[in-house]
């Protein structure tokens, strides 16, 4: 295709997972011309291999928590009319501790979180826990309930966000690989793909754990790495687990940089009747091979929370790669090393929840508007900066 005939978009988005879909939606709704390029099909990466968590309960104080609260208001506010289409459930999350000592530590965390504006209710003992979740192991000591934790079906969310974006004129090219990012005078000016060249005012990398690979096409280093997790899917069951339920160790593991296998229990039901069980974390590159140990530990941890699961059949397991950065914060915004190159990636296990907030902020920044939250902490070039002497 000759340069004169190359199509042009205000924005080219690389990746049609939840981040690409969300960015496409906000950009197109704001009147920008958008092309989304996806090497597979919609949500064929991490977005179709997760649980659809929208959590505030597990966020560390700081920019990620702020982004999480901001995102929540968008899911429940301007996107509320679409909630049924992506099975948004404001079910709330229950963190459970199995020991008195763990409960006391949780109490400290909860008091701290309240101070930051997170709504959380004490659940003082086993009986109170089982009023909320009747099937919970009676041996659990106590917990905390987070009414603002919620769930969506992430694949539906990505598809519907893209449908809405296309309704605003966005173009979607699936099964199309980005071969190169075009750079001119140090500025990203578009992409070369297997379907031809596309010129753009901005190239936005939303490629999840593969964002580093894509950024490298522009000669830019982006330290996004994969952290593998397994999910077990049960046979369809009558309503059994009412909320998202996790053991208190979950919060620790999210924040950990440990490379080895970490498992803590997360259990939730879904509108389709299946129960999803997670969560494992390990750094094994992009190895999709089934890990008997990881799957076994997820199964065991789930049974400890809900003994009735012992006899329940698991029909399916899948693994996915959470994209994370070394400091456990995502990269959002224009790359200071290359104008025209933007990123929205690295949200680790919180991508679904944080997607819409990320996208809205990014599009604000793209349009030169003041952003509702500062994007400073998420600047993609922060890893290249020398620490202050």
């Amino acid at each position, binding site marked *: 295709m000759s340069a004169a005939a190359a199509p042009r978009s205000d924005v080219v988005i690389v990746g049609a997972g939840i981040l690409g879909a969300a960015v496409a939606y906000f950009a197109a709704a704001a009147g920008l011309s958008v092309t989304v390029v996806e090497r597979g099909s919609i949500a064929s990466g991490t977005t179709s291999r997760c649980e659809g968590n929208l959590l505030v309960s597990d966020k560390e104080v700081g920019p990620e928590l702020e982004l999480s609260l901001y995102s929540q208001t968008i899911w429940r506010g301007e996107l509320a009319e679409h909630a049924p289409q992506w099975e948004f459930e404001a079910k709330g999350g229950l963190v459970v501790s199995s020991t008195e000592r763990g409960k006391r530590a949780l109490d400290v965390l909860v008091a701290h979180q309240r101070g930051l504006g997170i709504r959380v209710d004490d659940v003082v003992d086993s009986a109170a826990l089982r009023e909320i979740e*009747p*099937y919970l*192991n*009676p041996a659990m000591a106590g917990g905390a309930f987070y009414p603002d934790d919620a769930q969506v079906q992430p694949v539906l969310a990505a598809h519907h966000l893209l449908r809405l974006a296309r309704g605003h004129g966005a173009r979607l090219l699936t099964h199309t690989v980005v071969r190169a990012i075009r750079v001119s005078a140090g500025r990203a000016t578009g992409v070369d793909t297997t379907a031809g060249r596309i010129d753009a005012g901005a190239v936005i990398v939303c490629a999840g754990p593969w964002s580093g690979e894509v950024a490298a096409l522009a000669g830019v280093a982006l330290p996004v790495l994969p952290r593998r997790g397994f999910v077990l899917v049960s*046979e*369809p*069951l*009558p*309503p*059994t687990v009412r909320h998202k339920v996790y053991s208190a160790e979950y919060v620790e593991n999210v924040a950990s940089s440990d490379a080895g296998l970490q498992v803590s229990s997360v259990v939730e039901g879904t509108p389709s*009747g299946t129960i999803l069980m997670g969560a494992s974390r390990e750094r094994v590159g992009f190895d999709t091979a089934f890990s008997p140990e990881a799957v076994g530990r997820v199964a065991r941890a789930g049974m400890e929370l809900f*003994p*009735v699961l*012992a*006899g*329940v*059949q698991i029909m399916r397991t899948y693994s996915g790669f959470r994209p994370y950065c070394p400091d456990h914060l995502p990269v959002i915004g224009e790359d200071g090393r290359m104008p025209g190159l933007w990123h929205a990636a690295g949200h680790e296990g919180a991508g679904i929840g944080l997607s819409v907030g990320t996208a809205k902020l990014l599009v604000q920044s793209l349009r030169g508007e003041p952003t509702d939250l500062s994007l400073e902490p998420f600047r993609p070039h922060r890893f290249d900066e020398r620490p202050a002497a």
Partner: protein
Amino acid sequence: MTAPPPDGAREFSFDGRAIAFREGQTIGAALTAAGVTSWRTTRITGEPRGLFCGIGVCYDCILTVDGRRAQRACVTPALDGQIVRSDDPAEALPLTGEVDG
């Protein structure tokens, strides 16, 4: 063919009804022979289902056998005195916290 065993017909109970079977038959076969063609309703539309693939692949024929849920009738041998119940997708799991069956 020899006469049936002298200690009486082989039977299992299905939703409280006695179903005769020949030893060696599956629960699904015995129900079919007894004129029962469905023992389950689907979760969303409530359609009746019974045997479909007949060889253990489709999981349409599931029912509860001696307290164990989601057993395939077509590959589960019928045994004397079994308690078989049709599958109700809305029936809650037992609340005792013990392993089912």
